[in-house]
């Protein structure tokens, strides 16, 4: 489980692939594996009802469950559907790149992903603890105390190093020019607002990373544990 990498990775890909990818489907692809499932992993309260998966890790990443959303096959199938139904190979391919990045990044935790689904083997590097089953706040505290947050920081630093990807010139020459979506939406939304929307995921990922780090370590004093598989003070889920 990653908290900011999925917001930041698309900018790194955009820097290198320029007109070969479209930003919107790239970002949607990067978010897609968790889109339908995260709320049920952490659980929600609706009136008197508590809705939460009985086995959050299995529901999120396993089979039976929605773990197939973190497989390469899922990315390819949805990418192919986008290509054939909407007639845009660029959108289809960009979705695949974003979804692959998410599926590969999430192999870093202790549950990992069924990358080669329908083969249900979980590829997992065990670098940081998967603690989604403990609830959102404990998961946040654990994630921002372990190597997962350091991996996010790598993407953040790379994003700042690649600052030109966030400039107005880059937006005009590659993002706007490379995808008909932007001129289409520009009929109703001014260009300045579109530029801000393009930068939004980077802003969101970076600001959120800083805010959760302050929350976990300045407000609540959770201990850092940057050892492999840590933090070990939380109960990590395994496949």
């Amino acid at each position, binding site marked *: 489980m990653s908290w900011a990498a999925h917001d930041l990775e698309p900018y790194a890909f955009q820097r290198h692939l320029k007109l070969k990818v479209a930003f919107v489907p790239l970002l949607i692809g990067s978010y897609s594996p968790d889109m339908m499932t995260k709320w049920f992993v952490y659980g929600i309260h609706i009136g008197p009802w508590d809705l939460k998966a009985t086995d959050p890790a299995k529901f999120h990443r396993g089979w039976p469950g929605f773990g197939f959303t973190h497989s390469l096959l899922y990315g390819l199938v949805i990418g192919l559907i986008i290509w054939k139904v909407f007639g845009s190979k660029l959108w289809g391919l960009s979705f695949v790149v974003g979804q692959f990045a998410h599926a590969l990044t999430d192999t870093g935790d202790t549950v990992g992903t069924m990358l080669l689904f329908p083969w249900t083997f979980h590829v997992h590097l065990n670098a940081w603890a998967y603690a989604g089953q403990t609830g959102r706040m404990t998961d946040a505290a654990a994630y921002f105390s372990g190597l997962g947050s350091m991996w996010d920081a790598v993407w953040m630093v790379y994003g700042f190093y690649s600052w030109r990807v966030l400039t107005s010139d880059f937006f005009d020459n590659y993002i706007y020019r490379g995808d008909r979506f932007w001129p289409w939406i520009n009929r109703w939304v001014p260009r300045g607002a579109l530029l*801000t929307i393009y930068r*939004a995921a980077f*802003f*969101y990922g970076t*600001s*959120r990373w800083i*805010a959760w780090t302050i929350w976990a370590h300045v407000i609540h004093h959770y201990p850092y544990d940057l050892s492999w598989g840590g933090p070990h003070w939380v109960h990590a889920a395994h496949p």
Partner: protein
Amino acid sequence: MRLRLLRDRIPTRLDLRVFAGYCLAAAVYIAIGVSVTDFLLSFWVGVAYIVLAAWAVPTIVRRLS
């Protein structure tokens, strides 16, 4: 040629001004988020906030002045 290469790598004054604006917006977002963590949970809240803080407010201020 070398000077041009160097110029391409260094942000302009305008780039830095835009960056400073985003840093200010981020500082407020982080302060709210640390106090009310629910604020940090939604991507759409983040998008709405930054559009308001980094585009709508400066545009309105520019028009008024």
